[in-house]
């Protein structure tokens, strides 16, 4: 027994050593004193593996393009910019640790968020604790409970994001004079928020909700769901889905058919190159949200087309395994760090109080047009587009880089087509 005890003690010591070694490596990691020649470090967590990795990797490439750009222009405050980032594996659990490491060990000068609402949420308390500026990338209503005055969010869904997100879409369907609506959403945070907003919009329009359900993430066959929806005979079929479900629903609707006049709304993934080319003609008729499409009226976003072109070239040249087109996130991921850079340069020093104040009161001009943040750090107006897929003939990816496949239906001032009933375009 004593002998066993002895080994136990040894093993304990070994484990202890590991722990101590870990702590030492993290504590004694080069803690650079901020000097004028040192780079400005911007830290963030990003989903590079797991369910949201598609968006995360795309964003990272865009941010790296921005890094090159700003460094060519002389950097921030005359110092070069360095991005410090870690993979959060699309698991919120990893996020507090990452931000703590960034702030306490890497001593980054600024932090920005990773991609997606549930990966921003766990970073909020860490950031608020330090009282520093926090730029958010596609978070849905993250600041709702905190009301943190130094949080700024690039998702262009307006002051009330959940409702604003589907606002354009519901404007677009008014043409059909609908009476009934069916709602379907993925069992996941973003989709649930979208549906909640859609319900509010539907109620405001006086629509009767005839179907309101969620589907779990591993749903393989959507035909029973589509049939159940069809049996309620809705005029409108609002879908808030994740990539798996979006693709499954597009196919199931192609197979089973529907009499709804408008189908889609919050289908994440239909903007991805892989899914667009994979689904091809089956997409015709879907009315969905988007943020940037290669339509002629989109030139109100100066530089966005150019940026996307550079992104596509970079992806091809470096053979990166990311979205080939990059319409969905690239301009926004570029803009949210760009705005931070602009603000810091304008303030002229690293003073989070002053930077936040500047961010609040300034109208920024970026690759995504003019950005103005409101009280809660959300955009003052919604810039979400309602687009309809039309005239897609095959599975060729190139057609999606040209105008005409995703025509803008709303906002009215930049629209490039008239919204048509779903079945007319099939």
């Amino acid at each position: 027994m004593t002998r066993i005890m002895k080994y136990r003690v040894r093993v304990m010591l070994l484990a202890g050593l590991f722990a101590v070694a870990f702590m030492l490596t993290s504590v004694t990691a080069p803690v650079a004193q901020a000097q004028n020649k040192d780079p400005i470090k911007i830290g963030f967590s990003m989903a590079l593996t797991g369910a949201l990795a598609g968006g995360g990797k795309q964003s990272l490439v865009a941010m790296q393009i921005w890094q090159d750009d700003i460094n060519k222009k002389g950097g921030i405050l005359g110092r070069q910019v360095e991005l410090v980032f870690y993979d959060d594996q699309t698991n919120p659990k990893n996020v507090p640790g990452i931000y703590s490491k960034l702030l306490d060990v890497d001593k980054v000068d600024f932090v920005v968020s990773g991609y997606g609402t549930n990966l921003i949420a766990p970073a909020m308390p860490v950031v608020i604790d330090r009282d520093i500026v926090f730029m958010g990338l596609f978070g849905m209503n993250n600041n709702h409970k905190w009301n943190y005055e130094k949080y700024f969010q690039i998702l262009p869904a307006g002051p009330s994001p959940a409702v604003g997100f589907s606002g354009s879409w519901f404007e677009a369907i008014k043409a059909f004079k609908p009476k009934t609506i069916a709602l379907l959403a993925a069992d996941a945070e973003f989709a649930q928020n979208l549906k909640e907003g859609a319900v509010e919009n539907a109620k405001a329009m006086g629509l009767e909700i005839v179907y309101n359900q969620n589907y779990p993430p591993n749903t393989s066959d959507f035909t029973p769901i589509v049939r159940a929806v069809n049996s309620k005979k809705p005029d409108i079929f609002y879908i808030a889905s994740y990539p798996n479900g979006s693709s499954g629903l597009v196919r199931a609707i192609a197979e089973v058919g529907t009499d709804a006049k408008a189908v889609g709304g919050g289908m994440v993934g239909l903007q991805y190159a892989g899914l667009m080319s994979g689904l091809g003609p089956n997409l015709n008729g879907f009315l969905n949200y988007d943020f940037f499409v290669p339509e002629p009226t989109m030139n109100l976003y100066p530089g966005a087309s150019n940026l996307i072109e550079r992104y596509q070239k970079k992806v091809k040249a470096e053979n990166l395994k990311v979205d080939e087109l990059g319409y969905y996130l690239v301009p926004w991921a570029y803009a949210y760090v760009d705005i931070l850079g602009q603000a810091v340069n304008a303030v002229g020093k690293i003073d989070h109080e002053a930077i936040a104040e500047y961010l609040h009161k300034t109208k920024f001009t970026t690759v995504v047009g003019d950005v103005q943040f409101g009280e809660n750090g959300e955009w003052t107006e919604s810039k979400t587009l309602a687009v309809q897929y039309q005239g897609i003939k095959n599975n060729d990816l190139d057609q999606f880089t040209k105008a005409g496949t995703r025509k803008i239906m709303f906002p009215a001032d930049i629209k490039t087509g008239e919204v048509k009933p779903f079945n007319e375009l099939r």
Partner: protein
Amino acid sequence: MRESATVLEPSPLTPELEKRGVVVFLELLINALVAGLLLGGFFAALSIGLSICFGLLDTVNIAHPTLIVAAAFCTFILNSTFGIDPILAGIIITPIFFGLGWLIYSAYYQFFEKTSAEALRGLAFFFGLLFITEVVLIMVFGVDHRLVEARYIGESISAVIGGLEFSVPYRLLTAFVVASAMTLGLHLYFERTFFGRAARAVHQDMMALSLMGVDPVYIKRMAFAIGLSTCGLAGALMIIIIPVEPAVGRLFIGNVFAIVVLGGLGSISGTLVAAFILGIAVSIVSTFFGPSWAPAVSFGILLGVLAFKPTGLFGVGDTR
């Protein structure tokens, strides 16, 4: 609980409307049953290989769904570069997965079987394999969702029988036919051939096999390789039915193990039946009660069956 926020006001029921209601219900029910059966076929394709590896050989191959995803990516490559039909591609890559199975089992045998370590230890091994496979997939194919194109995707046959409208998507029909054929073939192979009977006996009495002049290790390795070779076609079916990304396999771990256990370990036909049961359950629940309850119902069925028949539906012998 989340339910329909508003329900249709009960409209005045004229006899005609009432009849229409019955027709709608019948249509939904029959379509749900058919769709469930087809979905069950897909589930069977995913789990049949595991039924052999896990049910017959006791190797807790938790990486099975992820290896299917790997096969799906291979199918994607063959389809997008050479335009090969996905099912054909699935057949083409089958030998690769057979070889892979051979290798994996050799390693597994070396480290675990030989030292008669518990199955639990093997579980950790297969978890490791799962992570490594995922990383390789991410590095080779990236993290984006991939789909394939084939004539039978996005189309369906529909018919009107007795005033009721049916439609069956070709995509799921293909999965059903291929999976059924695969299962039937394997079932016959393991029932009728000497090798199959030996494989079924191998976990019960290794000694007897040795006395009969059969090398049990060879039998096991062979059976494991056959089990893994089903990944080829299963992967092809997977990418026909859902978009594939490297982590998608994790979503199916619960399902495939539930099916194998529900069917009863060691019973290949039981796996097929269990897959149909879960497919139909999912489809009925999705149609009538709301899809978000589907997992609770299918796993509830599993728990219920295990409570009353601890060896699963068609399981025999002891509850290992």
